[in-house]
């Protein structure tokens, strides 16, 4: 029983990373109707930025976090202008391909400048964790869960309770109409990209102490985060969170009880099953393709 609780805790921690990255997907998808295949690399960049600032430049940890968030915000602007903006009037396919190109560029750019050796980063807290009965609570996992919960709540408030959030929803539903109503569509999309980049960066900061910081870390997280958002219901914020957590738990239990080498396959098997029997996901797709 103790093992099961331990696995559940770990699974939820891993799952909340998927959830954070999935939230970034969902936001960009809702604003632009396009899936950003470089979303995972945002996490990778965030993690590398921490390595550079906290280890190489020896900044204090909190300052490195602030620096990384600022860097990711700027990066969001650049990404929007270079990868999405020139293609905004075209169909989704060229944009998807362009984000795949960006993903290759980012991973290999970092590889060329930092080399293939994985880096490691210390956790946020000095204490590694504490035991409560048979379960060991890792402080980093606790931090991940807490930050995810706070961000999800803030995001909910932002979209449902603020004017700018409502404007962004309007943009995601009908860009032409929104623009006719005087909503600055390009600015709204820019804000979305900034926020998604920051979100990805935070996921990277949080996950860096658990995984090694490596060039490929982002793409494997992103694939699972994407699977999670489909399982939850594509385009749905709740769905991204629930799907992410569920996937983290399934994967952890699968690795413990079924097979370690096929750990990465569980996420995709679950995804296939959903696509076959319930393609709209748990909560249903928010925005279907318009007829």
């Amino acid at each position, binding site marked *: 029983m103790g093992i099961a609780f331990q696995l559940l805790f770990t699974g939820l921690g891993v799952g909340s990373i998927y959830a954070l990255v999935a939230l970034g997907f969902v936001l960009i*998808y809702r604003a632009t109707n*396009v*899936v950003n*295949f470089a979303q995972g690399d945002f996490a990778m960049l965030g993690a590398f930025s921490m390595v550079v600032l906290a280890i190489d430049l020896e900044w204090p940890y909190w300052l490195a976090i602030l620096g990384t968030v600022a860097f990711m915000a700027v990066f969001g602007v650049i990404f929007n202008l*270079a*990868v999405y903006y*020139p*293609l905004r009037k*075209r169909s*989704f*396919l*060229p*944009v*998807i*391909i*362009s984000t*795949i*190109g*960006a*993903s*290759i*560029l*980012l*991973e*290999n*750019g970092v*590889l*060329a400048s930092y080399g293939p050796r994985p880096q490691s980063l210390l956790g946020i807290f000095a204490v590694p964790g504490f035991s409560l009965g048979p379960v060991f609570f890792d402080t980093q996992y606790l931090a991940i869960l807490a930050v995810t919960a706070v961000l999800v709540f803030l995001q909910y408030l932002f979209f449902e309770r603020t004017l700018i959030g409502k404007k962004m929803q309007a943009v995601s539903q009908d860009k032409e109409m929104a623009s006719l109503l005087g909503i600055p569509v390009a600015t709204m999309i820019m804000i979305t990209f900034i926020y998604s980049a920051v979100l990805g960066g935070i996921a990277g900061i949080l996950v860096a102490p658990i995984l090694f910081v490596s060039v490929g870390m982002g*793409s494997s997280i992103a*694939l699972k985060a*994407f*699977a999670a958002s*489909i399982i939850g219901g*594509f385009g749905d914020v709740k769905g991204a969170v629930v799907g992410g957590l569920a996937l983290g738990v399934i994967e952890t239990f699968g690795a413990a009880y079924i097979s370690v*080498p*096929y750990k*990465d*396959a569980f*996420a*995709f*098997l679950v*995804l*296939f099953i959903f*696509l*076959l029997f319930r*393609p709209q996901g748990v909560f249903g797709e928010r925005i279907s*393709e318009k*007829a």
Partner: protein
Amino acid sequence: MILSESSAPAGVDKPLQRRVIALLVFLAIAAATFCVPLLVPMPAYYLNLLMQASTYAIAVFGLTVVLGYCGQINLAQAAFFGLGAYGVGLGTATFGLPFWLALAIGVSLAAVAGAALGLTSLRLGGHYLAMVTISFQTITTLVMTNWISLTRGPDGVTGISRPTILGHTFSDSSEYLALCVVALYVVGFAVWWLKKTRLGRAMQAVRDNELAAGVTGVNAYATKVKAFTLSAILGGFGGGLFAGGFAYISPDQFSFSESVVFLTMALLGGVGSPFGTALGTGLLILLPEWLRFLKVVYLAVYGAAVILVMVFMPDGIWGFVSNYWRRLRPAPPFRVGVVPPLVLTTHMGNEDGSLILMLRGLSRHFGGLKAVDAVDLEIKRNTVHALIGPNGSGKTTLLNVLNGLYAATQGEIEFDGKRIEQLKPHARAALGMGRTFQNVRLFGGLTVLDNVVVGAERPNNDVPQGRDGLSGLAVAALGFVGVPQHASQRVQSLSYGHQRLVEIARALAGNPMLLLLDEPGAGLNHPEKQELVGLLKRLKGHGLTIFIIDHDMNLVEQVADHITVLNFGRRIADGAPAEVLRNPDVIAAYLGGQQADAAA
């Protein structure tokens, strides 16, 4: 209608000479690439590069079909390539099968996987397909790496043997390369030819406008599955040849990053044509050799190239060059010649007053909104029946339910004696229901003629026999609406009014039993509208049954035999034009007033 003096049938004046020259040049290049490796001794390193290029190109042709022709993304081409390669590798090395049998097994594996993947995921939108193919790619790599007892794991498979034809074994690498080159040209030619077939046109129609393809009679889902399976087969075939060439394979050669490489090759060269994809493959295999100085940042440059190509050369290098070429030397004008008369064969003349369409209690609700609310409607054969009503009264929704774009919430639709409410749009088109859209929906990547040919190819259509039967029918339809002279142009270069006419021609070429016109007059200027009225009157004269939606009372009054009026999704009037247009409820609905509210 424009009729020239010439008595020759309509067609494009493309000098035979030019076609022969193009064919000869193609054959000469093919022969040269075939002979050079056999005659000129080459270091093994270059032989390997060329072998890689030719087998990769075969796999990338698969992307031309699925992405270029059909517009569906496939991020698992390396997995299909790997299935073919492991079929040959394990087949010959582990099980001692002859090469060709092993190749057939490998290709079948890829085909089955491709069909299964396509059947499960192609009903969903594009981003799902991207995700599903990535998942499949990841699982395939995991299985290749971890099912060690079968695949020999990360160490890979060695000792793969080469094929034998008529007792001759291709053990010499330059001979094997020649074999790969032959395969490359055969497949390349077949892919080029596919574009001009019925299936190829259907794929392009689905790519350009899936909705319109469906109502024109193309089974979009089946077409996409075919394209996807074909792509997987070509991937498997290329992979099988690859395994034979290198005698050694390992899982990392078939990873997701290789799928991305395949995609980049196709996009860089130009995914719309096999020449482009072959060019892209050659470039991306040779470039690393030429750009050795870039070694460290090479892949980063690669990623940047993908973005730049998408932004600046969306049609790839080949598309860019051929667009430029087309501008320098425009295609020869379409010779109108004698336009054959359009024979609306199927259903004219028998004005017996029987019903072609009957709606009983038809409803379509969106949540709480009753867009169409229990509508009864009867359309008699050989009449023009108009549906009018204020904006938002549910006219277009009714049309969409009629031809299957929306499922009916309730009610029955009987068309030509058959219940059709369960049928998909393409199946309704196959029964003879043609349609145009309020906002013109044409196949933007095809010529005017090909747009109409897709219409003529609707299932169950009576097409005149002979090689030119289809295009003759298409030209006849274009002639009927009055734009045959534009037949060889891309539809996008036509004016809005002409595009509307082409859309009508596309529907007419399918010999519809019932033609649904959704606001054909919208956006037309006055003379264009007059032309449209003339066209509708001629269609009426031919006895075609038409169900038309329009706002323009003048237009409706001139052509309609019968009018039905909708308001807030309900039928508020039905009958002969003069009587309906005097109905106080109808006047109130249009001008606003007490009765309209009562009717709601």
